[in-house]
């Protein structure tokens, strides 16, 4: 079995982009904690298919319950919150993001910075690619009786396409349901020109993100597109898409990555720069948050780099040619929602993963199947089998959960990964012998 990679240094210096992101997130939570004093209205909404540009155009602040849940997972608070929700009557079987979020609210709704997250003025149910979101907000409505609710139903791409009827349906909902509710809550009139201006920044952000996630095509890959990737998608998924700060952040990040490519450097890990890239993987499914560092370490210790992942496309997919269009603001928001990874049908998901495996020259395909997330998990075994048959590529399968530590079995995952990496190594060896 492969030995651990040596690292440049255990003390890792933060790059400028990391500091920029930390400041952005810190400011958002500060603003949220001050919302009642400043009079800013607060909108709870979801990451996939988020229409943060529209929220920004009404000068409101977004809260993403699943971001709170994953932050709680990383801060080892989720187990307690989940217990609270189960005491409240939630089944052990259901989504742990929901339970973690509800448990957090029942425990005072203290956010990652230690400050209270304000109650919502509007629940914006942008119901995209996950049926459980709908149930989640029904529960939130129950916890915040009387709160305004706006429903934005995103049609599923069941036929593998976005039809004009689907876009029209969404635009009508935006015009007749979402925008009037936002006007009512914020007291601000909808300003299309303002939205167009915000969307211009979204285009810049989208272009930069596309370029960033293209860079793992380099060998060695300068980034890990899964474990580090989840940090990279942070700003677009917590409300900064469409802001000048996001454009600056992604420009800085892109410059840093270009520099890494120039120097031939591998990805930055929590223990420094990865020296040797042994395996290139494409990963399907969200990561585990409660043991995120240990989970990541299992990969970089063995020289495995994730060159593409489906999870980083959960907030929106740019790979299939989508880019915001400021000249069609509402249509463009609708198309963004419909283009989220989990809103794609299974054949589309397979095609997209195939494209990643081929174009990024992956050695293997791995699924991290999440107990909580049927939207991702149901059908994954068929996805895996289809890709294995189509590409004759080694495939691996591990199971964990988002934020319930009861479902993260370190030894089990380590065992499975080691076997998977052995398989990859042998395959590489055979390939080399064949060439000789």
């Amino acid at each position, binding site marked *: 079995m492969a030995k651990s990679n040596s690292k440049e240094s255990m003390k890792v210096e933060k790059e400028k982009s990391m500091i920029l992101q930390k400041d952005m997130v810190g400011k958002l939570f500060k603003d949220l904690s001050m919302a009642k004093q400043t009079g800013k209205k607060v909108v709870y909404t979801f990451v996939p298919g988020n229409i943060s540009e529209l929220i920004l155009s009404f000068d409101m602040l977004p809260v993403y319950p699943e971001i709170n849940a994953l932050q709680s997972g990383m801060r080892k608070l989720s187990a307690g919150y989940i217990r609270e929700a189960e005491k409240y009557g939630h089944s052990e079987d259901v989504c742990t993001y929901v339970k973690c979020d509800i448990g957090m609210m029942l425990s005072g709704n203290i956010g990652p910075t230690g400050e209270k997250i304000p109650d919502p003025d509007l629940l914006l149910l942008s119901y995209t690619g996950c049926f459980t979101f709908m149930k989640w907000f*029904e529960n939130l409505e129950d916890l915040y009786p009387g709160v305004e609710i706006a429903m934005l139903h995103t049609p*599923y791409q069941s036929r593998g396409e976005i039809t004009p009827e689907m876009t029209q349906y969404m635009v009508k909902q935006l015009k007749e349901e979402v925008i009037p509710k936002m006007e009512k809550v914020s007291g601000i009139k909808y300003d299309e020109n303002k939205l167009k201006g915000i969307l211009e920044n979204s285009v810049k952000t989208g272009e930069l993100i596309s370029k960033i996630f293209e860079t793992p095509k380099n060998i060695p890959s300068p980034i890990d597109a899964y474990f580090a990737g989840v940090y990279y998608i942070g700003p677009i998924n917590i409300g900064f898409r469409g802001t000048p700060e996001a454009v600056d952040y992604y420009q800085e990040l892109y410059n840093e990555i270009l520099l890494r490519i120039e120097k031939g450097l591998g990805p930055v890990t929590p223990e420094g720069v990865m020296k040797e890239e042994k395996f290139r993987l494409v990963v399907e499914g969200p990561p585990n948050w409660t043991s995120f560092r240990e989970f990541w370490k299992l990969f970089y210790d063995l020289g495995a780099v994730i060159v593409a992942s489906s999870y980083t496309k959960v907030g929106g997919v740019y790979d299939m040619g989508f880019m915001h269009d400021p000249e069609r603001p509402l249509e463009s928001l609708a198309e963004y929602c419909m283009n989220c990874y989990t809103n794609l049908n299974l054949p589309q998901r397979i095609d997209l993963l195939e494209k990643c495996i081929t174009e990024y020259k992956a050695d293997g395909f791995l699924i991290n199947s999440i107990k909580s997330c049927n939207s991702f998990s149901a059908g994954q075994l068929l996805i895996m089998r*289809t890709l294995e048959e189509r590409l004759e590529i080694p495939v691996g399968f591990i199971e964990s959960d988002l934020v319930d530590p009861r479902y993260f079995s370190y030894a089990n995952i380590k065992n499975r990964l080691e076997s998977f990496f052995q398989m990859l190594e042998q395959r590489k060896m055979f390939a080399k012998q064949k060439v000789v």
Partner: protein
Amino acid sequence: MQTLTRIIEKCKLIAFDLNYFQAKDWKNNQDDRVLIGYMPIYFPREIVHAANGLAVGILGVGDRKQIVKGDAFYQSYICRIPRGIIELALDGHFKSFDGFIFPSICDVIRNLSGMFQILKVGTFVHYLDYPQNFKPNVGGEFYEKELQHVLSEIKKINNVPVTNERLNNSIQLYNKNRQLLDHIYNIRQEYPWRLSAEELYYIVRAGLVIPIEEHNEILEDVCGFIQKEIGEPVDKIKVLVSGSFCEQPPIGLIKTIEMAGCYIVEDDFLIGSRWIQGGVEDNTNDPIGALAEAYLKKSTFSSSIYDIENPKEKRLLELVKKRKVDGIIFAAPSFCDPALLDMPILQKACDDMNVRYVSFQYAENTGQFKNIKEQVGAFSDSIKLWGEQLVEVD
């Protein structure tokens, strides 16, 4: 001579025929007939009927077939129903089915539609995206286009033109079916001993796999039999069962509840058959519009719908009052996000209004009911011994 027992026996055979022989025989009698399978919960079968087709309800395999292949497609933490459906598909039970409809009820059923696409089961697979917007010019319009798409897929197969006249006729037949079912439920509310919940289940479920004309005849006969006094009343409480709308409870579970001191006078087992509350306009120039309007305005409450203006907890309590039940049994399948995530909301509403309830989980192939019997028995006894009149629900 037709007797109620014979009708029930016949329905029992039809309801659990996983080869769908009746439906296939019906199709074989005429060249341009089609079979369209549909998953829970609701699907407007009228449109398939008008296109010379039979919509066949697919409800999993229950405890009637051992799952071997299906388990290889699903992780342990996903509910049972899709495993059985995949098993049926791989074992060729859907041969001669033309298309499949997957109503939007949860992520598992949604992704199952993609699995059917990949496995190339049927000529077409359609995920029917039910609108969560209830305005006629927004959600209604979208829904009409969804229905028209299904019709266009069927037309590609059998080339049968679907006229307004045909649609109106189909709506009339399904209106009659809904009326008859309603009538049976109303009789059972007063005289539940005349027909057990198990027997009613066979009768309703059989209607999902045979032509509507035939089912209406069965229901008319059943109504005739249970109008008269038959059987003996027993000292049981009346309950409503909620949460079993998709993956079906095993028959043993329904029997257990009734044997443990309860009459089930309301349930959501096969709620698709009674989804539309009341009739759909059946003499109109726009029958598709009428079906859409019925969906928007006359749908029952459900875990698959978030009608912001019309909360389901309020509607559940209205149903409690309408059916004059003594309590609610929340019975949901394991790993069913829609049903299980509704529980705290519904139970809180029950607590607020002093409506008594008990809850447990099951799987379609659950085989042991001792615990459930004890739990339901204790629930029934507690109400019989110490129950007070229900608090008025306004």
